């Protein structure tokens, strides 16, 4: 089984994020880039599926600037077998439609039985890419998984949403996205770190994938940011120290605000 795990480089979760005023895209210089935490669950789930199914390979795939190679290296040290990096200057400012197009072409190029992603990215937080990939690849969408199992060519997923749980079945090939806490991502071992150095990493350009540069990037985006403003800090704050009446004071405040 060939498993492709998609990862994204994002600003560190614990950093402030902002838009570049020049073109309203993510200011990647404003914070350290790291592998998206939610994608580490996808890599871990891919590795577990590989370990429980003979003759399986995990390919980790990213699209992003040259610095995104760090995210691939992280996944390789965890135990992924190969890495594929789609990098091209023309990709800057790509929207979700273009990103899904490029990833779908790369996944087809690499070959796959199963694609695994995180449930969303922690920067854009759209939560659309897995569904878009299923649409582009024309394969089943078994997303928002709290549990993943494969029996022969049948994929079984426990789909968890705010509405409840659903048991979902599909035939491979298919696309899966996994929820946070589906597993506990492993820390790279020393052996894993050493082994990663000799694992193959392939770099692909848009030309390699047969994609017209005019179909991606900021100029081709189907949505445009008109303006952005940083929200000002809240004014009129009241902070009190409990003198034994704080519960009553909160109730008074709620009444004042017509919340009670």
């Amino acid at each position, binding site marked *: 089984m060939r498993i492709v795990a998609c990862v994204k480089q994002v600003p560190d979760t614990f950093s402030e994020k902002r838009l570049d005023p020049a073109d309203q895209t993510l200011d990647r210089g404003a914070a350290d880039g790291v592998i998206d935490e939610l994608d580490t669950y996808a890599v871990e789930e891919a590795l577990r599926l590989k370990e429980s199914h003979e003759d399986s390979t995990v390919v980790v795939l990213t699209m992003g600037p040259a610095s995104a190679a760090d995210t691939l290296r992280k996944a390789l040290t965890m135990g992924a077998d190969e890495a594929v990096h789609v990098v091209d200057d023309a990709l800057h400012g790509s929207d979700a439609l273009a990103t899904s197009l490029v990833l779908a072409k790369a996944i087809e190029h690499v070959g796959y039985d199963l694609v695994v992603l995180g449930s969303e990215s922690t920067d854009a937080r759209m939560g659309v890419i897995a569904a878009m990939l299923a649409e582009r690849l024309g394969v089943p969408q078994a997303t928002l998984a709290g549990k993943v199992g494969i029996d022969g060519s049948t994929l079984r997923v426990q789909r968890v949403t705010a509405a409840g749980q659903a048991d979902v079945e599909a035939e491979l090939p298919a696309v899966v996205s996994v929820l946070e806490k589906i597993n506990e991502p492993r820390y790279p071992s020393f052996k894993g770190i050493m082994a990663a150095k000799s694992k193959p990493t392939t770099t692909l350009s848009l030309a390699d994938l047969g994609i017209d540069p005019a179909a991606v990037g900021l100029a081709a985006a189907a949505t445009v940011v008109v303006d952005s403003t940083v929200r000002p800090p809240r004014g009129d704050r009241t902070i009190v120290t409990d003198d034994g009446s704080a519960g009553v004071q909160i109730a008074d405040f*709620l009444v004042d605000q017509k919340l009670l």
Partner: protein
Amino acid sequence: MADVLVLADVADGSVGKPSLELLTLAARLGTPVAVVIGVASSDVVEKLGQFGASAIVTCDDAELTSSVGAGVVTLLASLVSSRSPVAVLLASSAEGKEIAGRLAVRLDAGVLTDAVDVVAADGGGIVVEQSVFGGSTVVHARSTRGVPIITLRPNSVTPVEAPVSPEVSVVTISQYAEGAAPRYAKVVSRAPVASGGRPGLTEAAVVVAGGRGVGSAENFALVEELADALGGAVGASRAATDAGWYPHTTQVGQTGVTVAPQLYIACGISGAIQHRAGMQTAKTIVAINKDAEAPIFELADFGVVGDLHVVLPQLIAEIRSRQS
């Protein structure tokens, strides 16, 4: 006026409040047309009509109701081609965003998620307001290709009644399926979430959340009691869910759920950036924390430096006495 398609969320035979918000926004842009997956009971038809749905399209085909994503997308894509709406509006739930994303690919149209407001722009077009990076930045955006596909975050607008008698039509997916059916994942069984009588976390008007300061799973009963006194939902910080005190599905923050209620009460939550990213657009924030230096106080409209185990029982008693 042109149609605006609204994918309504009907669960257990009732229409969710996010769907009523969508109808209210749709009325600003054109004529609201509600799409209902499954059967629309007379109650559902009445409710959707009460909030301005001039037409209701329903589809109850098993292929559609049992597939993940694909079937609904086929239905919506066909309605876009037959009705030429000026926009397609969906709720910003995880499922709503997935459907929006697939539809955008199918139609090669722009998709904007997590809108908090939608307005018809001067000179045509639709401008969407989004709150990004955990609410720290406000963005105005618009679609430049195809019919705008927009998902709206719950609690963004107040539903406005605009009673009409909807014209109801029932369609089958076969009427709409073009060529070979897409391969899809099939739902074999469903277990709806046990809400315990509380509203859903993302659509609740009041959210009471507990963090490390709550101290134990048992102590969450106090957080639940306050939520119930206010008719609200219960959330938790990552510290509390990681400790196993409360389910991961209730985690509010960067890697969890984003909420924007009228009132958010943070109990024993320090307010790390990871948590703030999920709640700082709440209209009013109350915080109770022992540590006067906790960053949550930077966001609080009303903050109490104190022990939640002392403050909450008094607050709950006070709310109950004022309500009676």
